[in-house]
């Protein structure tokens, strides 16, 4: 089928005359200054000034916090580890939260001796901040102050993640470092993606609280920006993997496919046990995992046919799909109110756009959105209304355990020679094509500069 479409596309053109006539009409419209459009997407940048405004406020918080910390350290010594354990689920605003942030987490940091474990820890802490934010929003306890503090912490952890990953990759051989960066960033990207969806659903449940909703939307934009940055790093790393020598790529792919089988099985079990109650949600999860299995099978076939680079792309794609199902199913188990939603119809972009349309976005922060859709859109990008806000869930704000965060399978004895092979041609096969090696250019090559004045 793809051959047929590729074959026919070249024969369908606008035609010079039609193209010229349309251009004339457009130019005359430009001159006349007509404006009656209502079907365009909105694309605006988020202002970073919002964060600056809160940094002073955070400074005051820190001073007050130090006195509390001194008291609580004393209490910790007296009461022992039970305080530490009790603090694990604490949220901002609760007394034990200071223990969690200023004692437990530094303690964990001290235990993370290797660069890989530090990178993983910072990623877990970044996700934990988002977890706390979502839980506060669900309980109706989210305020501008704690939202901005959590967001600042989240961004701080993400900076540390980047620094840690960079320091990891510096010390390794070419193949290993590319693979670590690809795996780590892939896992983190999917984790952030699932968090975005959870936040979008929580935001939908706060329709009667425009302040909280606005706060969540601002946080959502920050998460999306970070996810996109991580996605770029992931793609760069994947590009590096596929230019490694054959024997390096072979080893990587063999180990990857072995782990993939376990991951897909785990995702299936989690989805089955989870509280995904809606039929569409269960069906969608099954469909996703069916695709992941097919991609894995195709990866195996490619590997057997000595096309290990294509196999890598297929396996990478399968892993991302299975990881998303796994993480989303886990979220559904912890947050029953999202259990009626499936992976596809949760549209973060639509939620951001709805926030703009209803005027609940935070002041001086605009959103990256998409064309407004209504409920009858055939592309299914609308969010189904969530259950009412401030549900008293028992969602545990525990560190995220699911993603591997770049734990490398046995890919030792890699050859760091500079001998590289050409990149493979883009395969018409869907799986390989998902991990494309090109990046989306910001501006078309023939347009001088950018259209942004």
């Amino acid at each position: 089928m793809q051959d047929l479409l590729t074959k026919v596309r070249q024969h369908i053109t606008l035609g010079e005359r039609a193209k010229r006539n349309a251009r004339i009409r457009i130019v005359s419209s430009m001159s006349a200054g007509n404006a009656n459009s209502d079907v365009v997407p909105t694309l605006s940048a988020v202002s970073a000034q919002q964060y600056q405004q809160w940094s002073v406020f955070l400074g005051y918080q820190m001073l007050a916090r130090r006195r509390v910390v001194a008291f609580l350290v004393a209490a910790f010594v007296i009461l022992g580890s039970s305080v530490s354990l009790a603090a694990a689920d604490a949220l901002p605003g609760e007394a034990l939260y200071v223990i969690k942030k200023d004692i437990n987490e530094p303690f964990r940091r001290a235990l993370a001796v290797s660069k890989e474990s530090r990178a993983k820890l910072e990623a877990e802490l970044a996700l934990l901040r988002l977890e706390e934010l979502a839980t506060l929003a669900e309980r109706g306890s989210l305020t501008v102050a704690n939202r901005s503090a959590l967001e600042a912490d989240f961004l701080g952890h993400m900076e540390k993640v980047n620094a840690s990953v960079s320091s990891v990759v510096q010390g390794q051989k070419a193949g290993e470092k590319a693979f670590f960066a690809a795996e780590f960033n892939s896992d983190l990207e999917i984790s952030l993606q699932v968090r975005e969806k959870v936040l979008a659903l929580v935001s939908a449940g706060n329709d009667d609280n425009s302040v909280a909703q606005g706060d969540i939307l601002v946080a959502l934009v920050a998460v999306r920006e970070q996810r996109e940055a991580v996605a770029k790093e992931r793609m760069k790393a994947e590009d590096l993997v596929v230019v490694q020598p054959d024997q390096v790529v072979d080893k990587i792919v063999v180990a990857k496919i072995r782990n993939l089988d376990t991951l897909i099985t785990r995702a299936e079990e989690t989805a089955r046990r989870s509280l995904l109650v809606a039929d569409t949600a269960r069906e969608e999860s099954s469909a996703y995992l069916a695709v992941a299995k097919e991609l894995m099978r195709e990866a195996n076939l490619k590997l057997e046919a000595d096309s290990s680079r294509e196999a890598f792309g297929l396996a990478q794609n399968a892993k991302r799909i299975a990881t998303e199902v796994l993480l989303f199913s886990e979220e559904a188990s912890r947050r029953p109110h999202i259990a009626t939603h499936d992976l596809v119809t949760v549209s973060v972009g639509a939620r951001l756009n709805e926030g703009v349309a209803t005027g609940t976005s935070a002041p001086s922060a605009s959103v990256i959105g998409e064309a407004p859709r209504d409920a009858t859109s055939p592309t299914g990008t609308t969010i189904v209304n969530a259950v009412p806000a401030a549900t008293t869930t028992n969602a545990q704000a525990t560190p995220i355990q699911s993603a591997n965060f770049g734990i490398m399978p046995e890919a030792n004895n890699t050859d760091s020679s500079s001998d590289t092979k050409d990149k493979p041609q883009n395969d018409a096969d869907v799986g390989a094509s998902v991990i494309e090696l090109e990046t989306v250019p910001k501006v078309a090559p023939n347009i001088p500069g950018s259209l942004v004045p």
Partner: protein
Amino acid sequence: MEVPDVTQQEFLNAYDLYADAIFRHCFFRTSNREHAEDLAQETFLRVWQYLERGGKIDNIKAFLYRVANNLVVDGFRKKRSSSLDRMQEEGFDPVDDSLPSEEVRLDVARALRVLDELEPQFRDVMTMRYIDELSPREISEILGQTENAVSVRLHRGLKRARELLESARVREGALLEAKREQDEYKQQSIKHARSSY
């Protein structure tokens, strides 16, 4: 709002660069050349209006496809009944008469028929991937969905399209066979009629 001249020129450059591609996208989404021309023109007009209102665009290509997609979807809701079959029944053949050969014409008709039968959520990603040659990442940006979701849709869409194409081939084969038998029968009838005299 006055848009700087340099931006006007850049916009027109973008038109020269992408007009064909956007038209092609609309054509394979709607199976109607005239409608596709209107949609393509409207896409550029809407983008210009957006710029006039002070909008900023980072990636003009993705932006154009996004607007075109939105217009196509809205157009679908209005023109659901304008199926390929109905148009052909009414004597309007959407396939371009300027195609170089009958073989190409048949291929295009076959492709359109399969696309027309595909569910909308598969048709859009299939068109973007195999007609527009957009990467899954670009498609995910345009549709506002994750790459995983796009990947799954592509996979399922391709599977479905293959099934439809196979059914179409079987039907075509059966029709050709029936026509051949009919021709043979006709030939034999003529022969018989001649030999009777």
